[in-house]
């Protein structure tokens, strides 16, 4: 089976700094892949390079087996939906219009129908007519998640989708992304919360100074050695009834 997303040997620079140093990542249909790592390790750079937003000096990226640089903007949008970390919205558009921006391939009326359905899916059906700047941060995050789902792409990439959300909204967001994966979509998220990464991801890729240093099932990738070496944490994942929890202290 072709992977939804393959990044191999990606090298990229931002100014003089090498932000990616031969980093690789694979995401297949039906799985949630978590990308974790310290601040500035290259999580966002890896996503951006794999999406064509950050030029790679070496390496290549494939979307559903097709070379990224051979795809038009419209073709690329049918293969991947992207939720950037920057969730500022410039104008006070109604939520349903914001969500409908995920479906530029559809006529406006049809896009709105899809958008309303996705808003309902994220539990924001009652917000459809509200302006997004009149909402709380959590409500706006739901609307933007609905916009991501409106793309109907086989690969959904979300950069820190739970940053700044309250605990309930964090769990809801990750559960919604899991549900998308269950329906056959490949999901890639960057996360800072290692407990939630371990709980909601099928696989975790740990990135440090531009390299993927560990990759696999959460319990393997987030081993005590990696926690110590990459995150400077002394601790381990502990199984609890609610799922794995990171118990650690600073080294």
């Amino acid at each position, binding site marked *: 089976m072709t992977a939804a997303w393959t990044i191999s040997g990606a090298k990229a620079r931002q100014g003089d700094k090498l932000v990616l140093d031969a980093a690789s990542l694979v995401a297949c249909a039906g799985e949630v892949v978590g990308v974790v790592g310290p601040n500035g390790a290259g999580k966002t750079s890896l996503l*951006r390079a794999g*999406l064509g*937003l950050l030029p790679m000096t070496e390496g290549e990226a494939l979307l559903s087996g097709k070379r990224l640089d051979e795809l038009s*903007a*419209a073709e*690329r*949008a*049918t293969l*991947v*939906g*992207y*939720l*950037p970390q*920057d*969730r*500022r*919205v*410039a*104008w*006070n*558009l*109604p939520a349903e*219009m*914001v969500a409908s*921006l*995920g479906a*530029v*391939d559809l006529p406006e009326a049809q896009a709105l129908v899809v958008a309303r359905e996705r808003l309902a899916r994220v539990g924001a059906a009652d917000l459809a007519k509200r*302006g997004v*700047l009149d909402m709380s941060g959590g409500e706006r995050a739901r609307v*933007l998640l609905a*916009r991501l789902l409106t793309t109907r792409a086989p690969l959904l990439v979300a950069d820190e989708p739970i940053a700044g959300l309250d605990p309930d909204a964090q769990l809801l967001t990750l559960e919604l992304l899991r549900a998308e994966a269950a329906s056959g979509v490949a999901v890639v998220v960057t996360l800072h919360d290692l407990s939630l990464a371990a709980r909601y991801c099928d696989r975790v890729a740990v990135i440090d100074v531009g390299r993927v240093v560990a990759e696999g099932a959460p319990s393997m990738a987030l081993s005590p050695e990696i926690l110590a070496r990459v995150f400077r944490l002394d601790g381990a994942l502990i199984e609890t009834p609610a799922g794995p929890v990171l118990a650690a202290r600073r080294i």
Partner: protein
Amino acid sequence: MSLLRLCLIMLGLLALAVVFAVTLGETPLALSQYAQALTHPASPPGEVLWTIRAPRVAMAALVGAALGLAGATMQGLLRNPLADPGVLGVSAVSGLGAALAIACGLAAVPGAIELAALAGALLAGGAVVAIAVRLREPEALILFGVAISAFGGALTALVFNLAPSPVAIAEILAWLMGSVENRDWTDSLRAIVPMAGGAVLCLKAGQGLRMLTLGEEAAKMSGLPMARLRAYAVAGAALLTGAAVAGAGVIGFVGLAAPHMVRALVKDDPRRTLWPSALAGALLLVLADLAARLVPTDQELKLGVVTALFGAPAFALLAWRAARSWRS
């Protein structure tokens, strides 16, 4: 409110303003003379209405529409409620072109000032297009516009400095203050061609402007050809501004204020703001020109002075509101 209904209401208001602007003026006419003007366009009252006032009103409406549309486009493109063609530096360089032409003694050559102003706007617009494709951040584009603006202003000051005669200085100053005095129908016809081109480009960019609501990266991944749409928007706004400056000199704040009059009525949508902004700009400038004519002063007020007097406080108010919303 639906877009069509809003546009029809704006058109109605504009038509009303145009009727007032054509009927009212410095030369008072009796009712019988209005009747005469309507039935005999060649009669003296007809001359006043159809060859003095009407072309002037038409020019004010065209320039206002161009500036309103350019402003709405730039605000959408830069995701900034304070943007207007002046931000790009297009007005400044356009004014520089006109100033240069006058200083070189080309004022007597028909169309020379207009062409120089248009050339200046296209030069600045071209520079902005070239840069905009490389600079992805809207803030960077604004800063670049500020730089162009400052440079255009500096060169215009240099033209003043080196101007051969006080007459040339007075002429340049008159141009920079902006006016639609003594325009005839050919002026409108000459302005309408680049304006139509600019309007088509801006309207084609509409969906891209709407997508930019989500930010640069989300827009880039949306599937729309954003680099092309962005270039349309910048080129269209430059063309509209250049044609406006060529037709009426430098007139500020209309491009800033017009979109704000209609934005809330189309639920903030940058795409559906475009047409109503053009109509609002036309309405604003027709009324401003009427005010310039009717306010009894020894020297007729310049249109650019009137818009600046009302526009600068409006700008301060908008800046205050924007700053408050950005803080939260």
